[in-house]
């Protein structure tokens, strides 16, 4: 049985052996000086976010004044009905989108002040994404998929291969390193996607319905993996309909009509 107790039980060091998941020290200036740090330090802080999408039938507000603060090492689950703005909030926290109003400060830096390429660099080095539909590159094998973000980050080939193998072993797929996504099951693909998200030792792992495409047993395995990743030091924010998965998080938030509720 995995540990469901959230962050508080894991604050002292890593919970498991395996690859180093400790968020890398910010060496590229993506964080404001003195703001990135150990557990408890703020990774991302969103204030009064609104996000309005122009639609043919008129503008639709997906977020209406949402605010949230994610600390290092935290495990936060956001639940809510479809269309309530969960994914939109996740995208704003992960700097793939910008709010219509309000602000997002990632490790002390106002995301609105970053250029597109600076935001891409920030995502590459500080954020990991896990998607409902995995989005692995089908022409690459599992190891190469995990190597890809490291390659972009300039990690030397030998080092990234070693880390990819470590991460695949960590997610229980050491024997499947040379398999392409088409040769893997849904659960295995999601585990590769988690390994890929952890490749550059991000400060924050964002997961959008990570068990949405999986059966209950496989979903349980993925949930256990998230527990382990968090126990080893990575902050996680996941949005899900799965209340069992959400229950494993240290902090649970509900979302309704574009607003966060405790």
């Amino acid at each position, binding site marked *: 049985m995995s540990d469901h107790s959230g962050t508080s039980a894991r604050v002292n060091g890593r919970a498991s052996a395996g690859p180093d998941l400790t968020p890398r020290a910010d060496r590229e200036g993506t964080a404001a000086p003195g703001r990135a740090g150990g557990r408890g330090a703020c990774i991302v802080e969103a204030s009064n976010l609104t996000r309005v999408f122009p639609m043919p039938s008129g503008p639709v507000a997906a977020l209406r004044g949402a605010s949230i603060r994610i600390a290092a090492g935290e495990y936060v689950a956001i639940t809510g009905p479809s269309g309530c703005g969960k994914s939109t909030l996740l*995208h704003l926290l992960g700097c*793939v989108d910008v709010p219509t109003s309000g602000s997002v400060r990632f490790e002390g830096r106002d995301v609105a002040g970053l250029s597109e390429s600076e935001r891409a*660099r920030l995502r590459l*080095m500080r954020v990991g994404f896990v998607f409902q539909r995995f989005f692995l590159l089908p022409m690459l094998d599992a190891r190469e998929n995990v190597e890809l973000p490291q390659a972009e980050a300039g990690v030397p080939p030998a080092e990234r291969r070693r880390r990819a193998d470590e991460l695949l072993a960590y997610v229980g797929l050491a024997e499947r390193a040379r398999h392409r996504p088409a040769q893997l099951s849904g659960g295995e693909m999601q585990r590769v996607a988690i390994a890929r998200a952890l490749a550059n030792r991000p400060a924050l792992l964002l997961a959008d319905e990570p068990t949405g495409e999986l059966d209950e047993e496989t979903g349980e395995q993925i949930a256990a993996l998230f527990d382990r990743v968090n126990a080893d030091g990575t902050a996680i924010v996941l949005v899900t309909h799965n209340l069992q998965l959400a229950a494993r998080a240290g902090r649970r938030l509900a979302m309704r009509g574009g607003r966060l509720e405790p």
Partner: protein
Amino acid sequence: MTARTLAWRAMTADPARATLAVAGVAIIGALLFDMLLLSRGLLVSLRQMLDSAGYDVRIVASEGFPIRLPVDHASAVAADVARLPEVRAVAVVRTDRAILFGRGDPIEATLLTVSRGAEAQAWRLVDGENLPADAGSPDRPPPAVIDRALAEALGLRPGAPLWLRALLQGEASALPAVRFRLVGIAEFATAESGDHTVATTLDGYRRARTAGASDDAADVILAASRPEVGAARAAAAIERARPDVRAFSNDQVVARFNENGFAYFRQISVVLSSVTMGFAVLLVATLLTVSVNQRLGEVAALRALGLPRRRVAAMLAWESACVVGLGGALSIPLGWALAVRLDHILRQIPNLPERLHFFVFEPELAAWHAALLGLTAAAAAAYPVWIAARLPIAETLRQETIS
């Protein structure tokens, strides 16, 4: 993992699509290659043909070259030209039409005579003997050399008698047939497709024309300039010495053809090249766009993971380059094979010099071909790259998840 590696993997991940794309580009590239060969082929071939004659200046009578009028008093003109210090050698070329009689049906042919010493440039002997240097006895039939096809058609071999009746322009062909003796069989430099040639000495030529031999006209007089002088200066010197003729260097002849008759081929080539390039751009752009649209989720995910726009753009540009590069490499041998076949067909046009080719390879054409295909690859990648670069990441991820 470079953009090039990702592009190659993406391309080979779908072998059927990649094969279709490469085959399409290979065929279009072959057509483009042929258009390039055609664009200057005739000019290059003409130049090679002119240069191979060993004379670099052509002397004609009329202003309106290349429409030719006979050069009157050719012997006197040739003698004057030969005396010029800028000129190394002179040859007088006379032609007419004649009907030949052998063992088979009568055959019409070009009757050719060149001044002594110019035979080696005018034809290459393949059987028998060449025309004798001396005039020979007036009682003896004059000698003749004919092309191989004519010899076969007439059923003649060297040593056989040959009857020839000259056809004079504007006059009834009432000239009697004159007996010649066939001394050799040759390949003629100026042979035209679908036509035959019979060469004889100046004496034989005059005896064939009998009653019509009152003039001393030549079709063209050829001159070879001294190397230290050059063809252009020699041509100018000839015109100064003989204001009644026009002299053109081979460069000038080629330039005139380039401005007049052969310009059509260049224009056709430009139009067809543009069309083929357009097809290539459309083909590759369509396949890449379809491919990108199938991979929007992956592209958005890559961007979300932190791969910058330029990386995704470079990946697609390389994918286009791989398709066009492979197709382009295959298009060269394919285009060459097609060019050989098309050249063979076009050279069946009657009265075309046999040594003239429509499709001629020049090394710089390969560079042009590569450059145009590179341009095609860039143009084809532009739209899919734009799609991928402008992709709204969050919106695309949401759409892909919902779909």
